[in-house]
C-alpha cells in the first residue's frame, strides 16, 4: 500500500500506509495524527483537516476545486499556497510517499 508521512509542527513524523482511494484525512484520523480532525467526515463543511502539502508533492496532489477553495478561507491556521483540505486528496499509487505538513492550531 502507498505511504503518507505527516510532519507535525514540532517536527515529529508519522508515517502510515493508506489504501488506494481512501482520503488522507481518513488516514490521519485512523493514525491519530494530532490537529487533523475531520469533523464533517470529509464533506467539505468544516475545514478541520487542513494541511500544507509539501512543495515537492503539491502538483501531483492536484489543485483544489472551487468548493474546497472557498472552504480554505476559514481554516483555523493561516492559509498558504500549499494549503489543502486533506479529505479531498485521495490516495493513489502516484502519491506513494507524499509528505504533508500539519499546521499548529
Amino acid at each position, binding site marked *: 500500500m502507498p505511504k503518507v508521512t505527516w510532519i507535525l509542527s514540532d517536527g515529529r513524523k508519522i508515517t502510515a500506509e493508506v489504501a488506494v482511494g481512501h482520503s488522507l484525512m481518513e488516514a490521519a484520523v*485512523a493514525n491519530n495524527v494530532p490537529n487533523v480532525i475531520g*469533523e464533517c*467526515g470529509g*464533506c*467539505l463543511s468544516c475545514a478541520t483537516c487542513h494541511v500544507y502539502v509539501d512543495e515537492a508533492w503539491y502538483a501531483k496532489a492536484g489543485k483544489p476545486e472551487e468548493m474546497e477553495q472557498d*472552504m480554505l*478561507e476559514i481554516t483555523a491556521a493561516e492559509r498558504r499556497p500549499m494549503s489543502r483540505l486533506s479529505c479531498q486528496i485521495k490516495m493513489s499509487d502516484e502519491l506513494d510517499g507524499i509528505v504533508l505538513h500539519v499546521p499548529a492550531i
Partner: protein
Amino acid sequence: MADPIIVIGAGQAGASLIAKLRALGYDGPLLLLGEEPVLPYQRPPLSKKYISGELAVDRLLIRPPGWYDEQTIETRLSAAVRALSPRDHTVTLSDGSVLRYSKLALTTGSRPRRLPAEIGGDLAGVFTIRTLADADAIAPMLAPGKRLLVIGGGYIGLEAAAVARSKGLDVTLIEMADRILQRVAAPLTSDYFRELHGRHGAAIREATMLETLIGREGRLVGARLKDGTRIDADLAIVGIGILPNDELASQSGLAVENGIRVDGQCRTSAPDIFAAGDCANFPWRGQRTRLESVQNAIDQGEHAAAAMLGNESEYDPMPWFWSDQYDVKLQIAGLNRGYTDTVLRPGKRAQSQSVWYYRGEELIAVDAMNDALAYAVGKKVLEARRSIPKAAAGDPATELKAWLSVS
C-alpha cells in the same frame, strides 16, 4: 486500581469524549459501553453515501478497531445499561453485572420518533434511519421501480427521497406542515428544496396528513391520507423527528427536561455525572438548547471530557450542520431560532444561493446551497460574534470575502 471513567453511549459524542480524555492526559481506566454491536461510527453517511452503496462499512468507523487497544480503552458492545445509581457510583448492565465508576458520562444519543402501531407503524417495510442496522435493512429495497413513501419533510426524509430517486424508485413525500423544512428553515430554503426535488421527479405533498398505513399480511402495501387519497407503496421511511434518550437519567433521579439537563460544564444534576450530544439539554445564549448534530456531538463531547478533568469553561458552541441531496450541498452555520427576517443572496453558479437569517439587525444563521463561500464567511463572522448588514448580504455585487477581515 481506581474506578474507571465509564461512558454510556458509543456514538459520535462518546467517541469524541473518550479520545479527548486521553488527549488531555487522563491515563486511568476508561470503559465505553455501547448498545449497538458495532464500534462508534459516523451516522450522517447512513442516509447518504452508505445507503446508496458508495461507502463501505469499515469507512464509517470513527476510529479503526486497533485504536481502542492503543489508547487502552475498554469497549463493551451490545451492552445495555439497566440501572444507574448516582449515590453508589454504579451502573448495572442487563446481564446483571455491576460496575463502579469514578466519573460517568451519558452520551446516549437519540432515537427516531416512530408512527404508532395503530396506524401501521410496526408493519414490515416501514423504516426509520438512525442505525447501521436500519440502513442495512433499507438498502436492498432501493431497487428501480419500487415505490417509496417518505413520511416527514425534514432533512432525513429529504435525503432519503434524494437517494431513492437517484436509485430509480418512485418517491412520494408527505409533510403535514404547510411546507417542508418548516421546523428548521425559512420559506426561501423550503422553496429551493421543493423545486430541487420536483426537478428530480420526487412528488412532494405538503399540508398532507397521513391517516393510516395499510398492510397486507403484516407487510406495508400503501397508505391512506386524511383527504381520502390512497398511495401504493412498497416501503416507507419515517422521518418525523427524534427523541433524546434520557430515560436512564430520569429513572436515576437526574433532572430531565427535553433531554438530560446539564450546565455549561456539561454537569448533570448528579455529582460526577456528565452528559453530552443529542441527549443533553444545555444553556446557550440565554436559552435551554438541545442540538441534534455532529458538530454538537463532537464539541460537547470534548467539552465534557475537559470538564470531567476539572476544566471550568462554559460550553459556547457555534452550531453548524449539513445535508446532501442530489448534486446539492447544503451547509448551515448558526442557529436560526427566533429569526425575524431573511435575506436571499443569489450565488455565482447555477443552483447556488444562500439565505441569511437575522434577528433584528443581528445575523444569526446562514443556509448555503452549493455556495461554500457564503457558508464559510457566514460561519467566520458568526464565530466572531459580528454581523453583516442585510443590504450587503443580499447584494451579489458585494464581495463577501471583504467581511472576513472586518473587525
